[in-house]
Structure formats: C-alpha cells, structure tokens
C-alpha cells in the first residue's frame, strides 16, 4: 500500500484530490430565540439588527446581503449549487439571508438553524488559512453582539450536536482511484468509525456519483478549534495518501484499462448531444483523473470545476434566463461541455 512509484512523485500537476475546504461556525445572539422556534417577526427583527454590521466588517470587505424572501428561485438555486447556502436556508422566507464577500470565500447564513452560520470556503486543502479568516470575522461580530455562550458548554446552538466550538470542518474529496480499486467503502467505514461523517456529494452513501465525497468532523465539544482542525487534517491527509496509492497502483498494473476509462469519458464528453447531470458527473470524474495523471491535456482542473458547476440546473437556467425542461437542460449541458472541452486532447 505504501509503495509509491516514482512516476507519481515526478508529476508536476497538483493532485487535486481535495477539491475544496470549508469551515463553518454556528453562533447565536444571546437572549433571542433560535430561528426554528422564533416567530417570523423576531427573525426579521434580528436580521435588521445584524444587517448593518455585515457591510462594515474589516475582515469581510465588499459584502453583499441577499435576503431569501427577495431572491428569485433561480438565484437561490445558483447559491445552493455553489454551496454558499443550504437547502434549508433556500426554503426559508422573511428574516433569512446570506451575507457574502465579493470573492465568495466568506458566506454568512442568517437565520438558518442558528442565528449565524459563518462559513469560509476555499479551493484545495486550505483549512488552516480559512480558519484564520473565519476566526477574524467571528471576533469582529462578537465585539458588536453578545453571543449566547456558557463557560461549561461553549457556544450555545439550536441543536446540541453543534454546541461547544460550533465548528464543522469539511473537505470535498475526489476518490476515483479508491473507487476503481474497490476501496472506497472500507475507507469510508474507517472514517465513520472514528467519528467523521462521510457522504456522497450527489447521491447517497457510497453510491455517490462523480466519486465526490464530503468528509466532515462530528464532535464539536471537548477540544479546541485548533485540535479539531489538526486532527481532521491528519485524517484527510491519510485518505489523500490512500487515494494517491490507489492511483499509482492502477497506473502500474492496469494502465491500459485506466487510460481506456479516461479515453471513453473523453470521447463522450467531447461528442455527446444529450447528457444527464449524473452521467456528466461520472464522466468528469474520469476526465479529472486523466488530467491529473497526465493522460489528457489542453484543459485544466479549473475548467473541470467550471463545467461541473455550469451544468447544474440553477446555473443553466440563470445563463439562459428562463426555466428549462429536463430535455432542454440535457442538450444544453452537453453543448456547453463540448464547447468548454474544445482544446482538450488525449496525450496517451
């Protein structure tokens, strides 16, 4: 397992196994009922109190506040597809909002399950950096409003499973190698046994399509933020090593099959006229692996991430400015993908 062929180490391309990092802090204002129990009037009042502060935070410049009740459904879909808001927030009405920095790296949900869900998001493995960022935003807000806090239980949250630090760290991981070697399941089981949550980004459990998994910590009380993040990074690093090893083993012992898998995905993505979002996710997983292993050129990982996003329903409808039926979506998705991959080439 630990054997690493030189070919892998010699690769200059970033591994991209960790696609993105995220940290969220659950916070509540003292003396105010939690959003799920508060009345609409209370929620609206709280948003009015909070709104002004978001645009004056030094640690979060150029902030835009978007109220859910005022947003069109398509816009809420776009925010959800970018993982800036949850489904739960998208469904909420007056009093719920998103405050978002212009670079989309800091996003604060107001009146979701908690009064505030402060989130920092970044591409790749950047958990420590985004912790510093969101910690700074948190400290600024803490200065302006009294947080609900107890010396015993820490930050008090609507759900007891978030109490303490209120911190949830998560990464999105692309585990195509482990899927091909049939090792995804044991790895996920192992992670769940030691208290992490793993879920398919799309689909359920290990049936996740596109081989994308979201891994996050579960325990929030009893350790410091730094301890939680360090332990989490250690585990993610371990999974990344497993994935690298799986890829290296595949490249060595099943090279032709691996290239065939990538080349078939390449052929379909470049030529298909109709494509469902699930098929696209699975094919892009193969193409992504092909780029990272040096089998495909003329296109980079940033392009793949963009294709992934723009093929989603909300983004498609936003780009055309109207509601699309399932068939229209599948044709448009296929066309956008073909265009984006115009310069892609098989190198093997």
């Amino acid at each position, binding site marked *: 397992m630990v054997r690493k062929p030189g070919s892998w180490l010699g690769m200059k391309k970033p591994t991209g196994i960790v696609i993105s990092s995220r940290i969220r802090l659950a916070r509540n204002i003292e003396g105010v009922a*939690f959003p799920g*129990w508060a009345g609409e009037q209370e929620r609206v009042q709280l948003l009015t109190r909070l709104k002004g502060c978001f645009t004056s935070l030094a640690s979060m410049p150029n902030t835009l506040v978007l109220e859910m009740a005022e947003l069109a459904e398509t816009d809420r879909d776009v925010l959800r597809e970018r993982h800036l808001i949850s489904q739960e927030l998208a469904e909420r009405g007056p009093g719920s909002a998103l405050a978002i920095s212009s670079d989309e790296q800091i996003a604060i949900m107001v009146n979701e399950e908690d009064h505030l869900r402060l989130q920092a998001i970044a591409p790749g493995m950047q958990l420590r950096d985004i912790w510093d960022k969101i910690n700074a935003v948190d400290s600024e807000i803490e200065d302006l409003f009294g*947080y609900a806090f107890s010396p015993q*239980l820490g930050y008090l949250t*609507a*759900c007891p499973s978030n109490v303490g630090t209120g911190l949830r760290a998560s990464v999105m991981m692309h585990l195509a190698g482990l899927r091909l070697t049939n090792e995804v399941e044991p790895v996920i089981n192992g992670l769940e046994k030691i208290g992490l949550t793993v879920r398919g980004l799309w689909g*359920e459990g290990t049936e996740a399509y596109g081989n994308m998994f979201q891994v996050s910590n579960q325990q929030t009380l009893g350790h410091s933020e730094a301890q939680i993040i360090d332990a989490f990074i250690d585990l993610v690093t371990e999974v990344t090593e497993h994935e690298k090893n799986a890829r290296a083993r595949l490249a060595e012992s099943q090279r032709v099959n691996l290239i065939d898998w990538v080349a078939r995905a390449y052929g379909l993505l470049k030529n298909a006229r109709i494509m469902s979002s699930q098929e696209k996710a699975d094919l892009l997983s193969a193409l992504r692996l092909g780029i990272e292993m040096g089998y495909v050129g003329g296109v980079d990982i940033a392009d793949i991430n963009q294709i992934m996003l723009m093929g989603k329903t909300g983004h498609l409808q936003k780009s055309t400015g109207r509601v699309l039926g399932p068939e229209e979506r599948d044709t448009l998705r296929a066309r956008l993908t073909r265009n984006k991959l115009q310069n892609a080439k098989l190198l093997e």
Partner: protein
Amino acid sequence: MNCAICKKNEATVSLKHSVDGEQKDLNVCVACADKHGLRSQLPLPVLTDFLFGVSAQADVPEADGQKVCTTCHMHLRDLQKSNLLGCPDCYDTFNDDVSLLLESLQPSSQHFGKVPVRQRAAQIEHFEARLKSEAASEHFEQAAAIRDRLRALRHEIQESDVRT
C-alpha cells in the same frame, strides 16, 4: 422512512425501545446507528430516551407535568419533536436531557475552545472552580487540561491588554 436522527438517509436499522411499558420503534440509518453506538455499545437508552422523551431522573414538572423553558416557552415535548432547542436558556431548562445526549455525542462536556472577549472573566472563574473540584476528586487528567486552558486564557488577556 427517513432516519430519525439525521433525517436524511433511509432508515434500515429498527431498534425496539420500551416507553412506559409500550414498545416503540426507533428507525435509523446504519451510519447513525454506528455513530451513536446504537448497534454496538450499550448506552442505547440514552438516545432513545432523548428522542422519546423519557428521562431517567424525575424532572421538575410544570402544571401539565412537562418541563417548560420560562424564557421561550418551549416544552420538553416540543424539543422531542424537533430535537432542536428553543433558545439559549433552554440549555438550563433541559439540562438533564441535553447532558444525556451530549454524553453520547461528544468526547467531553467541557468546552475547551474559543471564548468571546466579554466572556473571558466568567470562563476563568468557571475554570478555577472546576479545577478545584476536579483536583479534589482526583481527576488529574481533566484538571491538567483545565489548568492548561486557564493558563492560555490568562496569556490571551495579557496580550490583548498590551495591545490596547
């Protein structure tokens, strides 16, 4: 049927639990069952008690025999329905119920993380009291953890005093 805990996955594990002599089912997914030790270890009643609202201790009853939060008027039965508390004060009102749940979910019942600046004094006071009681009951590991955090907290205060 969706899992009673995460409300997302399909519930495939059915746990029998007796409430006041009446059999009730708790349907959860495999992931949640494992996560909360519902299949392996024994503290099964802890979570089912929380979900079904049966607490080991007799609680301070309200007029209708239910605990209620005086701040937000949430009843214990509301809490059992949603698994969400009504307001920050509910943590005092439903302390016993929440503690049981936390024991099954979290490695410790003491917060060791960030402390808001305006809560620092209260946190130090709390840690000092806990340090005494932990030392008295010879919980040396816990006492050491508290002592470390206390030291770090005092250091933070010194630093911010220097800055301002």
